[in-house]
């Protein structure tokens, strides 16, 4: 079995490395530093770590004030709390002035698991992608996570990076180079294109492998940057005549909605959305939840067949 690596740990360790090199990096957390893994930074660079307590709104506006004074603040909490708990602060303190704040939210999606719906973030991408000028990244593995964090430092402006709670097998090797705003073609294919983010990338690859055995040749794209969206890659994917998106998020306002907008505007083809339908999930083990709510390789395979039928 392939090795599973924590995206959160990759974030925490990369943040510390970058912090050691760049004195402008400061880190804020809202009483979750051991879960978000900002504690690596806190331990080594305590003078640049600001524990804000359970007060996410305050944390976001403090981060904005720091950014306006030349710092590069990373503010971390669970995805359900940022943007959920502090949407107006993100909108007014960060997005409107386009400040250089990096929000890294962990525990995105339903694979938070046993904590249940209060802690499962299924609306965060819709919320954050609605804000003009925000860069939004959903890494698929630990290697992509580390590079996304580097990109957030290298590029001025507001960033939102969404990480999942569980460890995940590596999609990429060390040669991989993340490019902001660019999709990655992981597998070529001509019958349909699967576009996936986060944990669903691995499911998409497995679905493509299984479909190949049935004679269906799928292209697989990872779309790590949701904003700015790689529209050219989506239009190119539409050449296959059918598109399936896969994400650990509501179908409203997430990857599927955004891809559908581009497809409808530029090259209409049949589409299916593998995403959480209009519902909250429940407590359970991550794998059980993915199965219950239709977010597995099998579900993607079904969706590909439905989309191809409508060609």
């Amino acid at each position: 079995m392939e090795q599973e690596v924590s995206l959160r740990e990759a974030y925490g360790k990369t943040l510390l490395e970058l912090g050691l090199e760049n004195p402008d990096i400061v880190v804020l957390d809202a009483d979750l530093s051991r879960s978000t893994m900002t504690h690596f930074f806190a331990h080594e660079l305590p003078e640049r770590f600001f524990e804000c307590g359970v007060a996410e709104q305050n944390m976001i506006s403090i981060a904005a004030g720091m950014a306006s004074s030349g710092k590069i603040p990373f503010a971390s909490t669970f995805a359900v709390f940022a943007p959920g708990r502090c949407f107006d602060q993100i909108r007014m303190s960060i997005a409107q002035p386009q400040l250089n704040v990096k929000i890294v939210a962990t525990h995105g999606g339903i694979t938070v698991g046993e904590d249940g719906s209060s802690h499962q973030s299924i609306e965060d991408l819709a919320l954050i992608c609605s804000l003009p000028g925000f860069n939004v990244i959903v890494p698929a593995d630990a290697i992509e996570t580390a590079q996304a964090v580097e990109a957030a430092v290298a590029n001025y402006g507001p960033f939102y990076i969404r990480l999942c709670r569980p460890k995940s097998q590596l999609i990429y090797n060390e040669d991989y180079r993340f490019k902001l705003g660019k999709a990655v073609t992981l597998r070529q294919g001509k019958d349909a294109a699967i576009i996936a983010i986060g944990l669903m990338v691995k499911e998409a690859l497995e679905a493509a492998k299984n479909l190949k055995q049935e004679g269906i040749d799928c292209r697989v794209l990872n779309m790590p940057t949701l904003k700015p969206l790689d529209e050219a890659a989506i239009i190119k994917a539409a050449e296959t005549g059918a598109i399936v998106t896969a994400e650990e998020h509501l179908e409203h306002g997430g990857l599927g909605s955004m891809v559908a907008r581009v497809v409808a505007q530029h090259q209409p083809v049949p589409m299916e959305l593998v995403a959480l339908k209009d519902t909250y999930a429940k407590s359970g083990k991550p794998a059980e939840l993915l199965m219950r709510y239709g977010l597995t390789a099998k579900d993607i395979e079904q969706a590909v067949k439905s989309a191809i039928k409508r060609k």
Partner: protein
Amino acid sequence: MSSPKECKLPSTSADSAEAEVFSLSASTAKMKAVAKKIRRHIVTMTGKAGSGHPGGSLSAVEIVTTLYFKVMRHKPHDPHWPERDRFILSKGHAAPLLYATLAECGYLPVSELCTLRQMDSLLQGHTDCNLTPGVEMSAGALGQGLSFALGVALAGRLNKQDYRVYALLGDGECDEGQVWEAAMASAHFKADNLVAIVDNNGQQIDGWNRDVMNLEPFPDKWQAFGWQVIEVDGHSIPQLTQAFKKTKKIKGQPTVIIAHTIKGKGVSFMENNPDFHGAAPNEIEVKLALKELE
């Protein structure tokens, strides 16, 4: 057809001499004259715009005038000067007051004030830090400014810069829970380079604070959150000056100046009248107000 609304602004000396802008020794008489000029700008510009928030702008005129003309270290011709003291307007609806003050200091031409709230103006209905020189924060959604100011203060400490940060809040704004999150955090981080000023005019959109949402015992609350509290008559320039001087000597904790003010101060029919919280004077009212402010 109605004729275009008049926008005759008082003449200014701001563009001529930067040295005049901030002088610790400026006499009270001179300061009062500046305050009156700023009041006239507020009435004129909101009247011209036909909308805006004159009441809460007029109540804080002495607070902001004292800061910009007596207390703060700043360079109107270099708005991004790294060593400047920072003024964070948290009650963003008092934008006309800030714009008028910035214009009197020389950050922008006084003639620009007539464009308030119009298409393509530098002067938005609520502050926009990317458009208006001298505006530190985009505001308008209440409750965020004190947190933002704390961030600016903490960054200054990290950068080993000795600038001070002044955040102006409305009293009605203190209904927002985030203000108290920020109050707790500012004391926790011992931000003694941060001063909050509350424009305590006692009124908010729906009426008196005590009827809308009781804030009292207001000074005790700040004290309990770990702040040094100074109460002043918010229309007394000498009292405000003394209070700001005192804040510089307070170490290890932030200071709040609770400035007792009158909403709509300076114009008899606007004073303590919540109707002028978010409504501009009409043409006749502008004329009457300017007459009172002669």
